[in-house]
């Protein structure tokens, strides 16, 4: 059965190979990062390239639809999980796992095109493992998402304080606090750069995080607007989708009639079932997200003495698709001169981070 199924792929690869002979090879930057029980390899392609990952006994092959030029071209590691890699032909890279290797996971990121390969396993048997052996129970991972970044500054306070800088500042403080409590924290960005909303939850999902916390600062035309509020996803929007989906399943999906495509929705290409299903992912965690939001809001109110703005729900794009409890914290209004001034004070920022840390402590 498998050989039959592989045949079209093989033909495809051959066609791609012929076509790519004339073209220049796509430069691919290869970077590796060793974690406690995994080795992550990130292939960054200079232009859009599609690749297939084929795990075979003793090797993992990455075959691309264009000729590729890896930089560095080869790699050799003193590692029990991944021993090295080398090119195979001009379209493929061959990765050679070590004796501790158990599994490969891969996923793609866009802008620029990246292929992330996670080789999991154990280094316990390796005599000179770079890290201590992993504990019996894996540590919980919390992903913290500093809102906005890069040219997307977010809200800007009256004296010029930018939301993107403050969210990163608060995220780093929160990370430091939680790390001291034995929690592994991954930041979706740890520098000033633009990051698509989908990538933010993808990072949380991939790390199998137990919580996803997106940090933001608010702004309002009402200059007196003041205080922190915590959001979780409103399901009414996605409930409607669920009903639509049920309808689609019952009567079988009929593509929009081209002649009747009088609205942009009819013509929209991204209204696929898959997209809808993915957006429903967070719905399974709404009860836990609600409890988490309550806990965070209670701590924020108690610690900072800010007016209780309460827990609220809204269809925040960044929370959709998170496969774990997920909340968005609007830590305060930087449009309010008084509150903006507070956020310039390190002690106040620490108080905010401590309040959130108390609420999420496992």
């Amino acid at each position: 059965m498998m050989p039959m199924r592989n045949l079209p792929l093989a033909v495809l690869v051959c066609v791609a190979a012929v076509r790519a002979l004339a073209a220049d090879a796509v430069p691919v930057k290869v970077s590796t990062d060793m974690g406690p029980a995994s080795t992550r390899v990130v292939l960054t392609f200079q232009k859009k390239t599609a690749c297939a990952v084929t795990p075979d006994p003793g090797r993992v092959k990455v075959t691309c639809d264009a000729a590729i030029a890896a930089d560095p071209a080869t790699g050799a590691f003193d590692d029990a999980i991944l021993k090295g890699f080398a090119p195979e032909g001009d379209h493929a890279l061959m990765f050679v796992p070590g004796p501790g290797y158990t599994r490969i996971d891969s996923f793609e990121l866009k802008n620029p095109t990246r292929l992330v390969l996670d080789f999991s396993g154990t280094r316990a048997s390796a005599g000179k493992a770079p890290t201590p052996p992993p504990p019996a129970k894996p540590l919980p991972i919390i992903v913290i998402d500093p809102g906005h970044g890069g040219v997307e500054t977010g809200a800007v306070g009256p004296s010029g304080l930018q939301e993107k800088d403050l969210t990163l500042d608060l995220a780093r403080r929160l990370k430091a606090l939680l790390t001291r409590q034995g929690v592994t924290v991954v930041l979706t960005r740890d520098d000033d750069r633009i990051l698509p909303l989908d990538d933010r939850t993808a990072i949380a999902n991939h790390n199998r995080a137990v919580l996803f916390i997106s940090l933001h600062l608010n702004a309002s035309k009402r200059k007196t607007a003041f205080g922190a509020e915590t959001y979780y996803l409103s399901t009414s929007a996605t409930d409607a989708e669920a009903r639509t989906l049920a309808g689609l399943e019952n009567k079988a999906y009929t593509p929009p009639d081209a002649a009747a495509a009088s609205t942009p929705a009819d013509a929209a290409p991204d209204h696929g079932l898959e997209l809808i299903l993915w957006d429903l992912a967070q719905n399974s965690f709404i009860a836990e997200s609600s409890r988490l939001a309550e806990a965070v809001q209670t701590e924020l109110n108690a610690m900072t003495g800010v007016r209780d703005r309460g827990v609220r729900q809204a269809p925040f794009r960044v929370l959709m698709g998170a496969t774990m409890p997920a909340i968005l914290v609007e830590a305060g209004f930087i449009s309010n001169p008084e509150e903006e001034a507070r956020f310039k004070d390190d002690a106040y920022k620490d108080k905010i981070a401590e309040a959130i840390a108390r609420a999420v402590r496992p």
Partner: protein
Amino acid sequence: MRAVVVALLVALVACGGGERKADRQPQAETAAPEAAAADSPSDAPMAAASVTLYFPSASDDGLAVETRDIVDTKRPADRGAQILAALIDGPKTEGALPAMPPGTTLRHLWVRDDGNAYADFSEELAMSGSGGSAEEIRTIYAIVDSLTANVPAIRRVGILVGGRQRETLGHLDIRRPLPPDLTLASKAKPTE
């Protein structure tokens, strides 16, 4: 008042606010069939209808209510276009704030048989997401709540900018039509 109503009606016809599909939509209000199917302004009833508009409240983070008279047209797309024109025109009381960034215009409004309306605004609307989520939420739900509260045929509203679908205006998912958020409107008290 009458001059205003006539002007509105003329503007409405000039905008080509007609929507064939909307004509088939069952109406909650009673209307003479020939009036509901009217294509020329002279056939439309000249009566005024009172509608409830939701604007960002000046005193809290919810929405405030204002009432307006519009031309009592029965076609959902015409009715909706008048409501959005009034929202764009802005609040008339001190208790309410503008719902949309200055310069925002409505490019088109479609109302479909399935209860979804699609409102296409000029690029200025995207500015509502350039700050915090608080204003973005109020802009989006001023539009969604005002349309769904006054046009029975509209149950959800899709928001487009410059003729194109967008993922967000900054924070909220607007890839698909949104139902109203009654928690924002329930705080609202008439400000008149």
